[in-house]
């Protein structure tokens, strides 16, 4: 990922900041400038909102054929997390054995390295998820 693109998204990726439509109340993550439901009524009015980082596994898959840079983490779990605020977020679940993951499992967001641009490039940080403590 090129440096400016990552830099533009850093706040959302670091702190799970999305947007809420003040007209209908729908929360979006990643943030949207316009609410697709309310259209022009929402233009210029979308409010930033920080998600709690809490959620439940809506669905997941165990990846054995890794994407570039994830060889040392395979097999790893990618999941769709349903948040109490509304948005469903795609993210990795870490610090877990893949066989422990199940639909409905409560998780919370943590701050991790997402990737790095080779050995000399920037390190990209952002959210992943871990199981809640029992």
């Amino acid at each position, binding site marked *: 990922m090129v440096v400016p693109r990552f830099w533009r998204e850093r706040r959302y990726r670091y702190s799970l900041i999305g947007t809420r439509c003040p007209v209908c109340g729908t929360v979006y993550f990643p943030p949207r400038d316009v609410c697709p439901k309310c259209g022009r009524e929402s233009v210029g009015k979308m409010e930033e909102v920080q998600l709690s980082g809490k959620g439940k596994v809506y669905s997941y898959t165990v990846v054995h054929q890794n994407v570039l840079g994830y060889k*040392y983490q395979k097999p790893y779990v990618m999941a769709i997390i349903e948040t109490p605020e509304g948005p469903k977020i795609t993210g990795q679940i*870490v610090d877990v054995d893949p066989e422990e993951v199940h639909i409905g499992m409560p998780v919370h967001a943590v701050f991790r390295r997402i990737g790095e641009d080779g050995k000399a490039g920037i390190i990209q940080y952002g959210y992943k998820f871990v199981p809640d403590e029992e």
Partner: protein
Amino acid sequence: MVGIVTYGSYVPIYRIKTAEIARMWGDKPEHPEKGLGLLAKSVPGYDEDAATIAVEALRNALKRKNIPGEKIGAIFVGSESHPYAVKPTASLIAEVVGAYKAHAADLEFACKAGTAAMQNVYAMIKAGMIDYGIAIGTDTSQGQPGDALDYSASAGGTAYIIGKEDVIAEINHTVSFVTDTPDFWRREGQRYPSHGGRFTGEPAYFKHVMSAAKMLMEEAGTKPEDYDYVVFHQPNGKFPYRVGKRLGFTNEQIKPGLISPYIGNTYSGGTPTGLSAVLDIAKPGDRIIAVSFGSGAGSDAFDITVTDKMNSYNRDAAPKVMDMVNRAKYIDYATYLKFRRMIVEVD
């Protein structure tokens, strides 16, 4: 009153038993436990580094008491494993908490950069420059495979927010002691540090810890028995007991703040995390002395009193140090090498 307003720690979930490291290098499995007092050490996950540990520790501190980013006037991050050689960790922390008006800087002083950060923030509060400041000690320390440090170099960190309102633990006094003592070092471009073997003991750790502790007690007018807890830098499980005995402290004063037997030496995170473990159990009125040590070499010492505000402070809002010490996933040496990026591949 200047002191700790909130605090939080983070220890990665992964552990390697020192007996497993001994198996790998042909040492007797009981050697690290008997010789160094170390049972296991924490290992950062593949996607963890000193910055992610710093963020998790700080978020735990903010769960206990939220301080809005715009009130934060300073951020110091002490580490000897900052993810970048050039590009601050402190600016990442500022972004994470939205502290855009903060004075931010990274510190490095082997294992004492975390307490150096605490002293810097303390001084800025005392000078009236800022209302709140963040001090973090964090590390994913490196030990050369097969070296004595392979048994101890681990990962963890603690964040303190220091201020003057709603202080849960007052910093009564702090002093430092420093000399040019080359007991441990890493030259630019070298992957692993070097050390002076036994030289790291007497002229380095013991001399500096004892000098700082004695200087602090002399200036504060206190004696070892005036303290409920003492926290020393913990490069292994034995040095803290040994230095404590020589200074006149009992094992009972030392034990609650000694976590290296279970998670190893978290370097810049060491003394701050030991203090964090003590704050997890301390009561109002308890008096704590904390003495760090950083190779190269120096010690920072703190005289701290827990205040009545601890009663209304929400300690349970974040995991305590021992909670994190006890939740552990054990890995073997090969997985350890994988997580620590020690496997050499063709570029």
